[in-house]
């Protein structure tokens, strides 16, 4: 087994920006954001949204880019290694476990959703399977059967078509990641991101020229669709709603992929002279462009024009994406083409995200255990395949997917982001962090961000996390003041626990334990490496 540490690097600045932007742009930009903005009344929601962008999104993003590049100069590229370098304490490396667990575990179910999207793109472009008429219940039934939501084990025993799409996207992901950072992720992102934006602009052009498709229902027109999305409602009253702030902050937070373990890993491959301030801002603004200017103008107005407000209200991300929108495209002139293009752009958004979820795990296996990329890819492939099979098998009501998404894809990310911003503002120190961030910087961060990153961001993050726990764990009802634990809790410890939810949490526990053992092993290797370097330095002294 080769023990040489592999030196990888980005080949261009625009490449790393597109790779980070590709990681951030995902299904949430086109499906979740528009639904939330319309639900909460866009005026108030956008105020909370842009406040969260400045205080949480961009601030934590800059901190994460800076810490990643800083630790990368010390030769560490995985989250445990980075925290081993940052926190010079034997426990430091274990703090970084979340930076590996989060992307690896999320990949296990995200790649499954990616397969749904790939399948829908294929069905639109090459079959008429999604020409199911004007009744949304037909699309609902198609989706439920397609993903095996009726019973556990359905897809594996009956061989559902989605399995073939899953196998294909799984192989494509690992083929690209196997090619390495520059030749794999960067090369792919450099054409996938512009292609995604181009496809979205074409679909947007189609939506903005829809006018009034059904003359019998003149109120269902484009202008009213845009109004449904953007009319502000009672701004003052809505801004007092804590759920609106939680929704806006959560959307910014998860959309920008901060606290995910990806940005810190990607930034660790930069050199000391590479800019992180402008690059971080550009990657974030690319995500915002896709979310607000493209996602905000396509999804809800298109759905309104064909279904009216009743067809959109209360729809979740999956319902909007896999039930409402297929119906909309099937009713649209040349809908097979625009539907195919829309789902293909969603596929590009998904695959650039899923690729980014693999690199932190690969980086850890390479530098922690000294594996070659080939072995690291094989090991991570086996691990994620097992987790993915678990999610696919327990497909009834997507319980396993939903449970893992909640505990890892939401709770763990809050914790990791808090660690990053607190380390940057308080442990490293804001002045030192500030100097570190501006090494090689092409633009300067406004001075006010010193106070935002040191005080406001951690406080805002902890407040949002407290609200999140109150609403989504303890089920707090602000009207009555009562508490009714949500299903995420009652499934685990209630009178009627759910076995799948319990097994899902147990799976998360096993994966965490597995990586903690590997990190302990890696720590010995890193300590030995540091001791060797110290001995060499002594030997070189005259």
């Amino acid at each position, binding site marked *: 087994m080769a023990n040489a540490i592999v030196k990888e690097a980005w*080949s261009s600045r625009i490449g790393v920006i597109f790779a980070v932007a590709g990681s951030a742009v995902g299904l949430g930009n086109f499906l979740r954001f528009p639904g939330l903005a319309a639900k909460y009344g866009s005026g108030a929601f*956008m105020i909370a949204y842009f406040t969260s962008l400045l205080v949480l999104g961009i601030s934590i993003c800059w901190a994460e880019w800076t810490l990643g590049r800083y630790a990368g100069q010390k030769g560490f590229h995985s989250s445990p290694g980075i925290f081993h370098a940052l926190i010079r304490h034997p426990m430091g490396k274990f703090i970084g476990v979340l930076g590996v667990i989060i992307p690896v575990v999320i990949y296990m179910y995200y790649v499954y959703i990616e397969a749904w999207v790939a399948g829908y793109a294929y069905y639109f472009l090459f079959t008429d399977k999604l020409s199911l008429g004007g009744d949304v219940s037909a699309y609902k039934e198609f989706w439920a059967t397609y993903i095996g939501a009726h019973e556990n084990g359905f897809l594996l025993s009956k061989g559902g078509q989605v399995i073939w799409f899953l196998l294909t996207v799984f192989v494509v992901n690992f083929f690209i990641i196997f090619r390495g950072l520059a030749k794999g992720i960067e090369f792919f992102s450099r054409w996938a991101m512009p292609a995604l934006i181009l496809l979205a602009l074409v679909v947007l052009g189609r939506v903005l020229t829809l006018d009034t498709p059904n003359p019998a229902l003149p109120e269902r027109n484009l202008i009213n669709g845009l109004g449904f999305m953007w009319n502000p409602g009672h701004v003052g009253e809505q801004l007092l709603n804590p759920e609106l702030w939680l929704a806006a902050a959560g959307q910014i937070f998860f959309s920008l992929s901060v606290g995910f373990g990806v940005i810190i890993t990607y930034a660790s491959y930069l050199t000391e002279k590479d800019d992180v301030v*402008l*690059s971080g801002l550009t990657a974030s603004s690319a995500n915002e462009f896709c979310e*607000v200017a493209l996602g905000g103008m396509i999804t809800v107005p298109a759905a309104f024009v064909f279904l009216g407000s009743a067809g959109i209200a209360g729809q979740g991300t999956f319902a909007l994406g896999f039930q409402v929108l297929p119906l909309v495209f099937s009713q649209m002139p040349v809908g097979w083409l625009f539907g195919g293009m829309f789902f293909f752009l969603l596929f590009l958004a998904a695959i650039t995200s899923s690729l980014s979820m693999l690199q932190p795990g690969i980086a850890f296996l390479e530098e922690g255990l000294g594996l070659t990329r080939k072995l690291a890819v094989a090991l991570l492939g086996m691990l994620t395949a097992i987790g993915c099979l678990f999610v696919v098998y327990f497909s009834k009501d997507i319980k396993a997917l939903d449970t893992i998404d909640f505990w890892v894809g939401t709770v763990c990310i809050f914790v990791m982001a808090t660690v990053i911003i607190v380390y940057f503002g308080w442990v490293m120190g804001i002045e030192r962090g500030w100097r570190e961030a501006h090494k090689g910087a092409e633009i300067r961060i406004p001075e006010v961000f010193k106070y935002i990153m040191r005080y406001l961001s951690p406080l805002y993050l902890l407040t949002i996390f407290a609200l999140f726990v109150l609403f989504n764990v303890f089920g707090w009802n602000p009207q009555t003041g009562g508490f009714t634990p949500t299903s995420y809790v009652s499934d685990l410890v209630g009178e009627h626990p759910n076995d799948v939810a319990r097994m899902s949490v147990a799976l998360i526990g096993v994966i965490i334990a597995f990586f903690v053992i590997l990190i302990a092993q890696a720590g010995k290797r890193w300590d030995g490496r540091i001791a060797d370097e110290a001995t060499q330095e002594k030997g070189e002294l005259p």
Partner: protein
Amino acid sequence: MSLGGWITMILSVGFVVTLFGWSMSKVLFGKEPTEKLHSLDSIDTHDTEGD
């Protein structure tokens, strides 16, 4: 669509388009070359080769 809706849409979309456009122009036409240090083909980490 109300006047407030138009204002919300124009401000929101305008802000992100301007921010993205400004950032990209700084990256593409700023001081630092976008292709630097290495070219894509010059990098071969040998990490995909056998043990």
